[in-house]
């Protein structure tokens, strides 16, 4: 895989022609500074054909597992939308078309690595070990849906845009201090990248050489705001460079490229080679959330072009070319995934319980007296209403 751009620090081995002097102890160097290049990684082209010599040749089992995860993500997405429309689900944020970003960014993580999802990362969460029934509870507004399942080292998903990025860097800073050879992956959107705290996070990661991989899913939209109103620069990867973080651009609809880029970035992080920013270029084909109506602000014909860039279809062409998956087998995977989602829904319906009496339980390790008094007041209200 091509070497991506390196931070512009003098003492590091950068592709810049003229490394700038560390100016604290040197005179001003008036030679202009070559910033180098941002690599743009694509392995599968628009038609699912692999670029010459780039095929990472992952083993069959991995490829089929990743394929199934993408299909399952899409099945979950469709079902959640349907459930929301039928009034069985809260507001939901679909992920149609971003399945490659999602699975690609987490597939190489081990159980001791950490993942910090955005609210649109359910595919990645499923891969990480969140049951779909658990995620349904989350989206349906049950408190039990929020904490990561036992053994899963994930942050809860992030609702306040960008607010999880700094804590993710903190996780990585702690890993480095503990000399644990793990890494953290944090996922956020093109809109989130406008938050100043995300810039602060890049800078802290660079200064600390924290083992973290920033995955920015640039899907062209933040609700109704297109990327050109969001940013003065189309290539968000450039920003990483500005803070001294190795940065590259990846075709986010190309699962092989996503897998390669993240695997490499995670390896580097674990080996002490510092953070990476991956800008995954993709497209939000569906609604922002079920509360949103894109027809108000975008020409839906824009979406059509992206249907042809479907990450699952592209991957299936590749798998077919490798004789790994016939179209019948693909249909079988789809059917099995659909069934798995339905089973999860059954589970969800049977097990989700609202526990209004528990809401005070976890604010503090030990309940302060004044809060206990407030809890009793609240319980009296529930009693009066006959709420259990």
């Amino acid at each position, binding site marked *: 895989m091509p070497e991506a751009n390196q931070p512009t620090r003098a003492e590091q081995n950068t592709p810049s022609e003229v490394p700038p002097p560390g100016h604290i102890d040197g005179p001003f160097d008036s030679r202009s500074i070559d910033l180098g290049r941002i690599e743009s990684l694509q392995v599968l082209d628009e038609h699912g054909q692999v670029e010459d010599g780039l095929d990472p040749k992952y083993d069959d089992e991995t490829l089929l597992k990743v394929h199934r995860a993408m299909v399952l993500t899409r099945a979950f997405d469709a079902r959640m939308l349907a459930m929301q429309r039928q009034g069985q689900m809260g507001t939901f944020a679909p992920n149609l078309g971003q399945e490659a970003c999602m699975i690609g960014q987490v597939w190489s993580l081990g159980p001791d690595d950490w993942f910090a999802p955005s609210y649109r990362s359910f595919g990645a969460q499923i891969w990480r070990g969140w049951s779909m029934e658990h995620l349904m509870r989350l989206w*349906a*507004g049950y408190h039990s849906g929020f904490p990561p399942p036992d053994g899963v080292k994930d942050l809860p998903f992030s609702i306040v845009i960008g607010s999880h990025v700094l804590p993710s860097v903190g996780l990585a800073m702690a890993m480095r201090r503990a000399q644990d050879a793990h890494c953290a992956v944090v996922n956020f959107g093109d809109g989130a990248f406008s938050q*100043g705290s995300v810039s602060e996070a890049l800078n802290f990661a660079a200064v600390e050489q924290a083992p973290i991989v920033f995955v920015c899913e640039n899907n062209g939209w933040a*609700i109704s705001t297109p990327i050109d109103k969001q940013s003065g620069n189309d290539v968000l990867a450039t920003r990483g460079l500005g803070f001294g973080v190795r940065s590259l651009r990846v075709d986010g609809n190309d699962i092989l490229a996503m897998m390669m880029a993240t695997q490499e970035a995670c390896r580097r992080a674990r080996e002490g080679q510092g953070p990476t920013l991956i800008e995954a270029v993709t497209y939000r084909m569906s609604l922002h959330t079920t509360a949103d109506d894109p027809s108000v602000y975008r020409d839906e014909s824009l979406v059509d072009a992206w249907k042809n860039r479907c990450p699952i279809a592209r991957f299936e062409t590749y798998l077919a070319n490798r004789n790994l998956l016939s179209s019948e087998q693909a249909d079988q995977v789809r059917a099995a995934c659909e069934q798995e989602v339905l089973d999860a829904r059954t589970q969800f319906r049977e097990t989700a319980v*609202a526990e209004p009496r528990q809401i005070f339980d976890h604010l503090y390790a030990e309940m302060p007296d004044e809060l206990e008094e407030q809890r009793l007041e609240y319980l009296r*209200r529930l009693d009066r209403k006959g709420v259990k």
Partner: protein
Amino acid sequence: MPSITMVESLNLALDEALAQDNRVCLMGQDIGVNGGVFRVTKGLQARYGKDRVMDSPLAECGIIGTAVGMAIYGMKPIAEIQFSGFSLQAFDQIEQNMSRLRNRTQGRFEISMVMRTPYGGGIRAVEHHSESRETYWAHTPGLKVVIPSGPRNARSLLAAAIADPDPVVFYEPKSIYRAFREDVPEEPETMPLGKAQVVRPGEDITIISYGAMIRPVREAVDDLSDQHGIDVELIDLLTISPMDTTTLVESVRKTGRCIVVHEGHRTCGIGAEVVARLAEHGSFEYLVAPLRRLTAPDLPFPYFQVEQHFLPDPDDVVETACELMNWN
């Protein structure tokens, strides 16, 4: 006299302000073509253009910070924060510049701007979308804090907030954005800031509230009157800061009993301030029962499956009023 919802009346007030005064401009996330996630700014970008109704990048601090600069230059920016929970991202700009620049420059700069934002629970939203933290702003010198309770006063208070020479935090009770309609006059109207309204005069007990809570309180007041023969004086604060202490003290001096009802957390909430002002004004001399606060507990707003009974409801008000009426 059209009968309109609060979303429509706010839209109307913004439209009127944009039409009247070309210093007025709107900024915020998704307020343009999309008309805002609650559609409060619907149609305004088409009417006034992208420079006067501007879609901002996703950065609340950036929105408030640049709005302050525009105000210094003589514009009257109205900045929307999509949900009040995200105004914390702009806390530094709000306190360090918006609230203080007039003072810092000894009156040379006028920061005539409004931060509009939907607040409060009751719409079954996800975490961080149901906050009522008006205390943060009431405790910040230099700001005014205004909270309407219905379509008609929403329009006139927003007009007054825009006209005000000082920075105003305008909290919109989103749970009643579309809950009911009211008639509004054809002509623009304004209401003075800093004045509470005696919504219903009464003799037995004073209930002080504001925003979305006025509705359940009204229900309780009717019930108290109909079922219990208790004559409540109901006061709608409308402006949280500065607070209309005189109206409050006069009422409680008359009734001798008082309940404050709000959505915000209890500790250091607006209720604490109301009670403290009454206490300073000698309430111990005229009270015949203890003061009571009915508020959200000091707990983050719960997830929506269990949010239903989190806030004070009409029964709480009725029960508490009866308790105070029967105080020995």
